[in-house]
């Protein structure tokens, strides 16, 4: 079973919500759509569900034109970021709703509902009222309802974003288990998120989306190692990848009068000229013999420190794996791990990556 989208376009007012979207998804896989807010993720999910109709382009499932099928006849399931359940029904009735709608025999409904509730860890909650549940529990009910249908396509729109940190971590782990089981049941699972870390954790394929376009569709590993443009590198890293302008000349990379170094191994062969270079925050460390930078800001987060550094026109963020204090305006010596340097052309496209060499 495969879901194929070609050239989906939607422009309700002045901006594109969907701009020439194309992708191909197959059963048994998890796909994470990652992008910033307002990138079009929710619009895409709702288009797949049938709630929004694209102005042009097509969506086909196994060759059948999805566009002709109304929402209620498509075999999809969706979980929203706001905990959406039917307020007037109990937990059991909520989860049983889609099955009742299909006129399934009561015995089978009971089996499926109890099984789904068990999967999400809500055994014994059948007769509770929705309003009496906590946020996390409500979201589990929503998830149970989406699982119980055994739909072809399961859509999840940032389902964890409204939960607190600890709960999010816990549910993410549980989701992963549920989803791997689900995925092997021949469904297509589509999960949207703004958090690159979450996307990477779920594994599966990643679709990077921005301004209504799919910028890259690849495995998580591939997107990490070879982001195909500066935009993708921004979206898929947290903190965002440091980008700075520079030139390649005579076997050297020149950023500024004081920042220059030898062309790294994987960049040999790059034609001379201007480039935008990228370096992850973790690839910048403090050590003697590095480049002089002024501390603009130092943020302590958990057991790490994010150090905002500036040198002339170059502004970078470095990640230190311990808690350190700095004074604003202090000069430090920063080392660049050039073996992990990315080179992008001036138009943003990837030219050389530490993991794949020249493109």
């Amino acid at each position, binding site marked *: 079973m495969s879901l194929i989208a070609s050239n989906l376009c939607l422009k309700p007012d002045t901006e594109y919500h969907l701009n020439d979207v194309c992708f191909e998804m197959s059963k048994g896989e998890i796909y994470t759509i990652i992008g910033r807010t307002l990138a079009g993720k929710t619009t895409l999910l709702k288009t797949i569900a049938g709630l*929004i*109709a694209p102005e042009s382009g097509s969506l086909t499932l196994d060759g059948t034109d999805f566009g002709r099928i109304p929402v209620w006849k498509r075999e999809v399931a969706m979980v929203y970021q706001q905990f959406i359940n039917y307020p007037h029904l109990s937990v059991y009735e909520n989860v049983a709703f889609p099955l009742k709608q299909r006129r399934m025999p009561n015995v089978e409904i009971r089996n499926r509902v109890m099984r789904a509730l068990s999967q999400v860890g809500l055994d014994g909650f059948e007769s509770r009222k929705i309003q009496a549940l906590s946020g996390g529990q409500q979201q589990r009910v929503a998830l149970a309802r989406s699982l119980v249908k055994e739909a072809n396509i399961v859509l999840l729109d940032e389902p964890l974003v409204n939960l607190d940190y600890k709960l999010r971590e816990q549910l993410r782990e549980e989701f992963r288990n549920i989803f791997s089981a689900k995925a092997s049941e021949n469904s297509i699972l589509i999960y949207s998120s703004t958090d690159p870390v979450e996307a990477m954790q779920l594994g599966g394929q990643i679709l990077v989306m921005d301004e209504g376009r799919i910028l890259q569709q690849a495995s998580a590993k591939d997107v990490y190692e070879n982001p195909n443009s500066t935009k993708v590198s921004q979206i898929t890293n947290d903190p965002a990848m440091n980008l700075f302008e520079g030139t390649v000349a005579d076997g050297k990379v020149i950023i500024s009068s004081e920042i220059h170094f030898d062309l790294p191994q994987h960049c040999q062969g790059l034609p001379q000229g201007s480039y935008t270079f990228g370096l992850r925050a973790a690839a910048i460390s403090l050590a003697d013999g590095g480049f002089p930078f002024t501390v603009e800001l130092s943020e302590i987060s958990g057991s790490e420190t994010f150090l905002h550094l500036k040198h002339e026109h170059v502004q970078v963020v470095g990640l230190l794996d311990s808690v350190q204090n700095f004074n604003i305006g202090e000069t430090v010596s920063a080392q660049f791990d050039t073996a992990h340097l990315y080179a992008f052309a001036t138009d943003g496209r990837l030219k050389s990556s530490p993991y794949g060499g020249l493109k």
Partner: protein
Amino acid sequence: MNFKHKYMFLLPGLLVLLGILIFPIGFTVRLSLSSWDSFYPGLDFIGIENYIRLFTDDLRFWEAFGRLSMLSLTTVFLQYVIGFSLALMVWKGIVFQRFFRVLFLIPMMTTPVIMTVIWRTFFHESLGPVNDFFNLFGMNPLWLSSEILAKFTVILVEVWQWTPFMFLLLLAGLLSLPKEPYLAASIDGAGPIRTFVYVTFPLMAPISIGAIIIRLIEASKIMDTVYVLTSGGPGTSTETSSFYIFIKGLREFQFGYSAALSLTYLIIMIISFTIIAKILVKLMVRGN
């Protein structure tokens, strides 16, 4: 989200309404272009003569308009102030809260005409209890037959009748206010007056505006009270626009002319209310 089904939801109601209204409105327009009255019955065509007449020769219509504005603005203002005060008082911290709330709601549940008939007996200048009381002081105010007092009586009856409506809307609003600003205010040591001015009143602004507009729309139609209490009198001192249209149409049978009056009145009111609503909304946004 747009499905073909949407028409099935909207159209029954819309079509029924249009269906029942189309003839009356269309007919009124046509009528206003004729001179149908009891002397010359029939649908002739005189163009916009009726409109010219009402704009140049009919002071009474515009006076009625002025009176209507005065009466509605006064009554709605009073209803708002009193209604808000009552709502604040029975909001919390009062004994017999439920009793007072139900009691204060009752007048709006009554039929205005019927209560006005009772008020008529109440204010009866020789046999009513009000003057019985005033007679003790040697006074016999002419509640229904003096120009100024008649206006007062009409306002009084309207206030009695419709303050509960404001009271209901405002109390519902008060009961739905969030608690946090009040906690903050009490931590800051604000007394009841400051709390009201800086917390309650601003929070209630959107509801206040909605309530005032709704009441103004209803108040502008005032008819029953005037009809029963004073019949527009004495003279024309309590004659409002709808009463004047009523007289011209169903007492003097000048159908054509009253149709023109009706349409003009309608258009003026729709424009006025749209403007009033826009102004109030702007005031509210500015206040925020």
